[in-house]
């Protein structure tokens, strides 16, 4: 039944002593052993997460005001948007709002650095070694040149567990939410997923 439940739930470790202490706080004789309770608890916890991850849909947790760029947006402008909006990636769309790609800081770094590790410090190292800005090489580029395509997307009805699964297996940080005509309706980032869980914890 739980075969599609790919995320390994981390059940808080609970000792028989914890349960023994909790039982002391409850008046009356409780007809269960601490170890039976522990087994019940860990199984119930998995059921609760399963139920939550299936009941929460992308539409419930997505950010609706998505900052997007066009395929022909200059990379300079894309970089400025990232800086100004304090974001690290955006979907790339056409005039009719259909999603054609996604572009992130990582794509800039990959373009600038040809070595295996294309992270920020690699760029710094490269700049220092060449005594200059290596961003020059992409000055004339457009978003379409470095974007990732095709994009991993979901719809507003995609359940939370599926989103987590997709983001984790594709190692991505954001996922555009699209309607049946592949037009963008929102975006889900890792932050949205964390919020979905912390809202539940409260």
């Amino acid at each position, binding site marked *: 039944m739980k075969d599609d439940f790919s995320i390994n739930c981390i059940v808080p470790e609970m000792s*028989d002593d914890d349960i023994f202490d909790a*039982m*002391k706080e409850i*008046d009356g*004789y409780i*007809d269960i052993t601490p170890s039976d309770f522990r087994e019940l608890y860990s199984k119930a916890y998995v059921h609760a997460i399963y139920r939550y991850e299936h009941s929460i849909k992308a539409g419930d947790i997505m950010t609706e005001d998505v900052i997007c760029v066009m395929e022909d947006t200059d990379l300079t402008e894309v970089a400025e948007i990232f800086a100004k909006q304090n974001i690290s990636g955006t979907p790339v769309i056409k005039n009719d709002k259909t999603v054609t790609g996604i572009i992130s800081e990582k794509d800039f770094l990959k373009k600038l650095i040809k070595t295996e590790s294309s992270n920020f410090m690699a760029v710094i190292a490269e700049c220092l070694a060449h005594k200059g800005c290596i961003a020059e090489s992409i000055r004339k580029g457009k978003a379409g040149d470095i974007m990732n395509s095709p994009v991993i997307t979901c719809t507003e009805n995609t359940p939370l567990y599926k989103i987590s699964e997709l983001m984790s297996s594709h190692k991505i940080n954001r996922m555009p939410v699209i309607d049946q005509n592949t037009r963008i309706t929102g975006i889900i980032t890792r932050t949205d997923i964390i919020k979905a869980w912390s809202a539940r914890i409260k």
Partner: protein
Amino acid sequence: MNFFVKMKGITKSPPSVNMSEIIWSWIGAFIGISAVGFVHYRFFEQHDFILMIGSFGASAVLVYGAIKSPLAQPRNVIGGHMLSALIGVLTLKMIPDPLWLGSAVAVATSIALMHATRTLHPPGGATALIAVIGGEKIKNLGFIYILLPAGAGAVILVIVALIINNIPKNRKYPEYWI
């Protein structure tokens, strides 16, 4: 798990209850068994009927001493006693001899039936057993045994439990009916 390792046990026993729980268990059992006993001694003076009070003594442990247990809920107490009584009466009719075989079949089958009907109540085993070993008078009762003394006693215990177990602030009974 290794067969012998299993015998070591895996956890510690549950904590002791507080003094108020002990006192209310006593009060409940005292009144519950008084009521059942009064009815039985008054109306069924014959020795064979009195045997049945042993089974209710066991029920009292659960109904007044472990009131949250599924085993102590009305469904289990009344259902367990009556279904076990039925098994006991049927067993006596089908296997009147030897006694040891009838006893074993009655108790084992009553457990199976209580499990299957979600009415497991340990004293039901005694109720089934008494139907087989209780002698002529109980045998003569036939299926009446299911209602009297089995069903009636169970109902009295539950009624007393509903009153007594709901008096203290931190106790409530039952957990469920169905």
